[in-house]
């Protein structure tokens, strides 16, 4: 214990004078600060967009007032007026943007058939999407391992190459004690870095320091230990610093870059989702085909779902909104099974990708951090499901006006349902991800201990 304290003190003295190490730390901190800034900026843009929706909404209502100064047919309102389903980000989303950069922050919803409205999104530069967001989670998932490799690839080899190892071991000191001191020092340095960046992120973004903070830190520190353990396993081979560096970069490339690509490919191949396109085509055919079908047939089918409106007046003759919204409704209903299959396929893909990511701690950590921040695909699917339910509420609000021939008054806009969604953190998935990281740590630690025991019986 005393030797450990002495060695830690000298590791610190050495660290302070080692300019390259200090530079690495500063670089890591700067990357972290930029990641926080960048995530916060992206979120601010989304928030500004969401905040601007109220103005658009009110302008639209004013426009409706000008267009229909007295009262209006609810069919006109349903067609010309839009409401918004808002996906409000939690402050935590700034730390891990996740799917929020590819999924819309809001959806513009009209009373028309909902299915093709659910998948609208803004055009985005695909190159930007390919690289992903430079947020704090990116720094932790991809850059933190490189930082750990940079400070520990020569854990033992540096001492050996500069000739200090023999002199140290000529003292009554076990190699394992020296090794342990170096690991502890590096872990403390990494932990300080992770905690500093995380606290800065919480203060900067206003993310609540609740249970999520604990999950966040636990997951990242376990991940850091995994990389430190990997560095130790390779260092224990007693090979040169160059060998260690190349091996560790190879492991990083394999786990952080190649494995996620393979996981995506495996998911695409084993769980193809053709229902997306099929759904859009069938719904489109059904809705457009509605124009050519006999009106009575359309209304009969509609009344089966809404018998309470079956005594509404005839829709024969001139264009009637009742008939129009009836075939819009039937268009949606014609793809209900496909919609459910599509959603199930997406959930299955998510589950498969999550299962496969046990082979890639970086992919697993990204999943955990996105889960904590509420920015996983699951949470986006929840928003889509919530928006669909919101559309049902809009129908429940407007249909009585339409099918009971009640005039829509301007003041009725105040009663229009609203929908705001904020994703809840997925604690269950995050906890299981943390357990996977823990298991990976146990494996890598056992490997490191085995490597150390078998390779350090004699000083090479």
């Amino acid at each position: 214990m005393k030797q450990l304290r002495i060695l830690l003190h000298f590791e610190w003295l050495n660290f302070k004078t080692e300019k390259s190490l200090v530079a690495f730390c500063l670089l890591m901190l700067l990357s972290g600060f930029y990641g926080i800034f960048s995530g916060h900026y992206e979120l601010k843009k989304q928030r500004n967009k969401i905040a601007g929706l109220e103005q658009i909404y009110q302008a639209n209502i004013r426009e409706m007032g000008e267009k229909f100064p007295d009262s209006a047919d609810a069919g006109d309102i349903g067609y010309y007026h839009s409401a918004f389903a808002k996906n409000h980000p939690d402050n935590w989303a700034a730390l891990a943007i996740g799917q929020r950069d590819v999924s819309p922050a809001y959806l513009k919803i009209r009373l028309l058939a909902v299915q093709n409205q659910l998948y609208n999104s803004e055009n985005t530069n695909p190159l930007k999407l390919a690289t992903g967001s430079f947020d704090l989670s990116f720094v932790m998932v991809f850059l933190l391992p490189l930082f750990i490799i940079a400070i520990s690839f020569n854990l033992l080899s540096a001492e050996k190459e500069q000739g200090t190892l023999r002199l140290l071991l000529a003292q009554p000191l076990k190699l394992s004690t020296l090794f342990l001191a170096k690991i502890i020092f590096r872990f403390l340095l990494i932990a300080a870095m992770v905690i500093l960046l995380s606290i800065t992120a919480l203060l900067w973004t206003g993310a609540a320091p609740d249970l999520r903070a604990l999950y966040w830190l636990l997951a990242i520190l376990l991940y850091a230990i995994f990389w430190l353990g990997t560095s130790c396993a390779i260092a224990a081979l007693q090979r040169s610093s160059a060998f260690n560096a190349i091996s560790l970069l190879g492991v990083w490339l394999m786990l952080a870059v190649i494995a996620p690509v393979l996981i995506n490919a495996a998911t695409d191949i084993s769980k193809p989702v053709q229902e997306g396109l099929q759904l859009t085509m069938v719904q489109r055919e059904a809705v457009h085909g509605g124009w050519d079908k006999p009106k009575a047939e359309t209304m009969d089918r509609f009344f089966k779902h809404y018998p309470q409106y079956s005594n509404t007046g005839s829709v024969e003759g001139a264009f009637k909104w009742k008939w129009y919204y009836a075939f819009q409704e039937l268009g949606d209903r014609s793809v209900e099974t496909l919609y459910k299959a599509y959603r199930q396929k997406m959930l299955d893909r998510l589950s498969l990708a999550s299962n496969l990511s046990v082979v890639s701690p970086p992919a697993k950590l990204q999943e955990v951090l996105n889960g904590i921040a509420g920015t996983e695909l699951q949470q986006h699917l929840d928003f889509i499901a919530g928006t669909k339910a919101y559309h049902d509420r809009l129908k429940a609000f407007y249909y009585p006006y339409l099918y009971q021939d009640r005039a829509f008054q301007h003041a009725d806009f105040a009663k229009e349902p609203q929908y705001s969604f904020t994703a809840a953190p997925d604690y269950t998935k995050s906890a299981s991800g943390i357990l996977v990281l823990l298991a990976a740590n146990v494996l890598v630690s056992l490997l490191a201990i085995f490597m150390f025991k078998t390779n350090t019986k004699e000083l090479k």
Partner: protein
Amino acid sequence: MQIILEAEGLSKTYGEKTALNALHLKLSKGEIFSLLGPNGAGKSTTINLFLGFIQPSAGAARINGVDASKDPVGVKQHLAYIPEQVMLYQNLSGRENLSLLSALAGFEYSQSALDQFLVEAGLQADAINKRVGSYSKGMRQKVGIAAAVAKNAKVLLLDEPTSGLDPKASNEFSELLLRLSAAGTTIFMATHDIFRAREVSQRIGIMKAGSLIDEINAAKLNAGELEQLYLDYMKG
């Protein structure tokens, strides 16, 4: 006569290659023993076995009664090691390096005590607080010697200590060894330097291809005779 360093049938083989063949050796308190031999003769292997860095294939290496292979940490309480190149932490000062080495050996000294060890080992006072990166080989060796004295080592293992030293530094080093020997430190030195070996040692061993082929009383031969004897062995 108190035996401090002892090799008993000490052997080391790597596959079919014999690096050290049944070395028998006993050194008493305060004795200086030099091992002469060409590269690959087994001198460094012998030192590594005493340090517990490698495991013997047969026999035992003991220092102050402690078997280096059975208690590789315990044996180092009693010995100090000075390699051909004393490599220290370049960014730390001589004092900080000495403080680390002696603290690891269980001796935590005050700054003035550390400085005194360094000065007694021959380091100039104004160099004590300078980065070791600016030290010459001789200065680094003096830090190594100071570390040996600071840990109160009973045995000093030296591996080619005078190679690369200028004559003045080499001479100072010899004087230092004699002083340590007089104070009771047993010194085992692997070297190519026949002249220094004869100058400081009581006994000289000649090693060839892993075997100790002769042991000579240094006082009985002058430097020239020793050199001739050594060359004759190497030819044969």
